[in-house]
């Protein structure tokens, strides 16, 4: 993924190392008293934290194991006995003996404890053989040093960097830890030390760092350090400003790509076929529910492959929506070509039926669609700017779908027939095109694209029976703004709306941004009554 492991990757590693440690543990085990274990497991938070610190600093491997187990919420108590649960088996935390913990209850964690645990773990992990874990631990320490300077931790950092321990640190972790140290040294009484710290920190363009530097600048007396601090703050400000712009553009594009995906199917069913398809949203919804079903099936029957359920969901969602679309076309819409406004009424009726159908089958409430791990987390493109993977995937997915659709419509014979049929149905028939089949196919294709959009939105939003209602207006807005029947127009309109929306939202808030975008759309249509990409010429 990236240079910076995400919190989740970090947790996964813990699991790995625990297995490793498990093999070594009988040899390395040191004593852990039942009282200490109990103090960590139960009681009020303050005492538990105290126990935690104590145990973390001890050399007891058992204690460390217990801390790690607690961090992954695997500690349970049975009577006064503290147990570590592992895949349906239990061991006694103090003795390491296997026991039967069938009646044990999990101990409670809260955020305060979790915070303390993370810090302790960071200190423990700093000397883990795995350099990735070292680095993650160092980062964690740096962060907590930035947010809440803690003398105990500061001492630990100093110690970790100094000789006997220092050699055991891998280079990247060491760098991070030095930055953490710099945070501490920024407050030192020695001016050269402060100067060096300021220079180290200038590299690290985070808002938190900026605050520390600015704070220090306020009380700094040494002019050289002052100067260094000032340039450091300015440098960070610059990089933050840049990051902000990049972030907004990215957010805009990512919103735009979702708009694009949801509008693309409509660009076909409405833009090309001229069906005012009010059930478009429901086709998206069906795609999302298809994803949910695939997801549930994987969870149940193929848990090992769960990570890849989305790949299976894509064709299935496409087919599901396409099938429903084909049925709609065959059963209802077929009779309405040439009466576009009537399709509004009929498809509205269809949408009501589809919503209720899904509601009766799956229930009115949201259903859970869990994103695969590889879509979580993000990539840090610059300091202070992490782009989430799922957004990146959706952008890429949208691009792929657009290209696919454009090729299909513009380059294939089938696409030609679709365009021909939609422009002049009876003449196309007279040319020997099986118009009924093309109609069904084209409608199913557009519906299938809506299904694909459903896969995408199931990864960012909620999946509920009225999911489609939320997208239908946006879809029409985008298609019409771009110019009906203009695929390129749809693309530009979607991205444009997304980016403009996000920029306005940046300074006016979400509500006003939405209103502003709507007003903007109205104004643009005034200037371009046939949409952004209106056909010019006689044929328009």
């Amino acid at each position: 993924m990236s240079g910076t492991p995400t919190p989740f990757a970090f947790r996964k590693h813990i699991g790995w190392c625990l297995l490793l440690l498990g093999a070594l543990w009988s040899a390395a085990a040191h004593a852990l008293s039942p009282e200490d274990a109990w103090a960590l497991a139960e009681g009020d938070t303050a005492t538990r934290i105290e126990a935690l610190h104590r145990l973390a600093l001890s050399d007891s491997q058992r204690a460390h194991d217990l801390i790690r187990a607690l961090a992954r919420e695997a500690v349970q108590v049975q009577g006064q006995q503290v147990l570590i649960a592992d895949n349906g088996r239990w061991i006694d935390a103090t003795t390491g003996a296997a026991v039967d913990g069938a009646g044990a209850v999990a101990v409670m964690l809260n955020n305060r404890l979790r915070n303390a645990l993370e810090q302790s773990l960071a200190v423990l992990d700093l000397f883990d053989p795995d350099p990735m874990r070292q680095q993650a631990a160092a980062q964690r320490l740096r962060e907590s040093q930035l947010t809440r300077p803690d003398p105990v931790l500061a001492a630990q950092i100093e110690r970790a960097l100094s000789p006997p321990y220092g050699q055991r640190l891998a280079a990247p972790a060491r760098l991070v830890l030095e930055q953490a140290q710099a945070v501490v040294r920024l407050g030192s009484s020695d001016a050269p030390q402060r100067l060096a710290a300021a220079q180290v920190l200038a590299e690290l363009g985070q808002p938190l760092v900026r605050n520390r530097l600015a704070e220090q600048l306020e009380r700094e007396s040494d002019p050289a350090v002052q100067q260094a601090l000032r340039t450091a703050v300015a440098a960070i400000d610059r990089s933050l400003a840049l990051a902000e712009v990049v972030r907004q553009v990215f957010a805009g594009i990512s919103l735009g790509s979702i708009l694009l995906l949801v509008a693309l199917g409509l660009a076909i069913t409405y833009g090309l076929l001229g069906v005012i398809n009010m059930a478009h949203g429901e086709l998206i919804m069906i795609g999302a529910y298809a994803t949910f079903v695939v997801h549930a099936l994987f969870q149940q029957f193929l848990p090992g492959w769960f990570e890849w359920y989305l790949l299976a969901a894509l064709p299935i969602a496409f087919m599901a929506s396409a099938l429903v679309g084909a049925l709609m076309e065959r059963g209802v819409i077929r009779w309405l070509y040439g009466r576009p406004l009537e399709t509004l009424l009929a498809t509205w009726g269809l949408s009501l039926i589809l919503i209720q159908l899904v509601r009766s089958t799956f229930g009115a409430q949201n259903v859970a669609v869990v994103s695969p791990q590889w879509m979580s987390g993000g990539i840090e493109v610059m300091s202070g700017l992490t782009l989430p993977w799922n957004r990146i995937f959706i952008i890429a997915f949208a691009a792929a779908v657009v290209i696919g659709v454009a090729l299909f419509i513009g380059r294939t014979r089938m696409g030609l027939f679709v365009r021909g049929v939609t422009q002049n149905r009876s003449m196309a028939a007279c040319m020997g095109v099986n118009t009924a089949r093309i109609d069904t196919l084209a409608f199913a294709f557009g519906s299938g694209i809506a299904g694909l959009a459903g896969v995408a939105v199931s990864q960012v939003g909620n999946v509920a029976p009225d999911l489609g209602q939320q997208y239908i207006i946006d879809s029409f807005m985008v298609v019409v703004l771009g110019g009906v029947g203009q695929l390129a127009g749809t693309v530009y309109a979607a991205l444009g709306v997304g980016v403009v929306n996000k920029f306005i939202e940046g300074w006016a808030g979400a509500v006003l941004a939405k209103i502003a975008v709507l007003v903007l759309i109205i104004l643009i249509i005034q200037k371009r009554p046939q949409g952004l990409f209106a056909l010019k010429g006689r044929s328009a």
Partner: protein
Amino acid sequence: NPNAPIRIGVLHSLSGTMAISETALKDTVLMAVEEINGRGGVLGRRLEAVVVDPASNWPLFAELARRLLTQDRVAAVFGCWTSVSRKAVLPVFEELNGLLYYPVQYEGEEMSPNVFYTGAAPNQQAIPAVEYLMSPDGGAARRFVLLGTDYVYPRTTNRILRAFLRTRGVGSADIMEEYTPFGHSDYQTIIARIRQFAGQGVKTTVISTINGDSNVPFYRELGNQGVRATDVPVMAFSVGEEELRGVDTRPLVGHLAAWNYFMSLQNPANAEFIRKWTAFARARNIAGHRERPLTNDPMEATYIGINMWRQAVEQARSIEVDRVRVAMRGQTFQAPSGFQVRMDDRNHHLHKPVFVGEVRADGQFNVVWRTRATVRAQPWSPFIEGNDRRPETPQRTR
């Protein structure tokens, strides 16, 4: 006819945007009705639920309320979720002297003689929650993001919270208030801003009054952008077990919610409640719940409401509204929350316990804090100016 069934109205949206939340409440009423009938009914008469669908349409709420009261002549109505739907039916209930049991937490500032409020008032949810956040266990927060959907409940709650925070010495520079439209689904910008606001080195928490559909995208984006509960915890007032159903909760572990009931509470009353609901959901084949039965706070409040109504009717030996109203005062019930809740003698609100829970990986809540006893409701929040002069009992205004 003394042996004819007693009818009660169920006025919850089964379609439209609110169906997501309200459908389960309808089923809760039906479950309670079945249970009561199983025990011989009320006053020896069977209960019969008249279910209607106001379809998330507020005027339709008013119309159907009138219909329930005049055509179906129901003895009481259990219904409404959103405040606006309650406001829409209120004049009808007052005009026709009907009885409404409203089961959802709300913003207060109301006290009608024709409504019994079994959800929380702000002081039974929002204020304790913030107090918890400011405590060492809650992370000793000093900086707050008040994030909500742009409508009256969040705005009122936040107004109250602002006033409350001021009394705790939190300056307005440390409060960021932000609203999104209904159904807002793209939280990238807002969460980035929250991160910025939180990245100033002061312990910051988010108080979310986001409502409805927006919660899923909000929490998903939280997970995406790696906002962890240990850094910036989010405390929500309208996110419960049912709302979390649609989210992958693993990245959300540790985020918080405040309620008067959690499904994860361990006590006999709750075990019984969950058991009954599970059986009912399976028997009735309620989609979603038959696979994964969930209970939540408004369901509990609904259950309390209908049981208290039953007790009051039996005590009054009549279903007449005026007599039931009197009998409701001081009514108690052993609630699934594990506490004995009591209807206040005067203000038509319940005395309820308050819990703060942290999201668990399985979508349930870990109760990390609770009040020692039940808390009396303050529908007129003392943090709003002029409310000290408000009467303590509902006044008939028309």
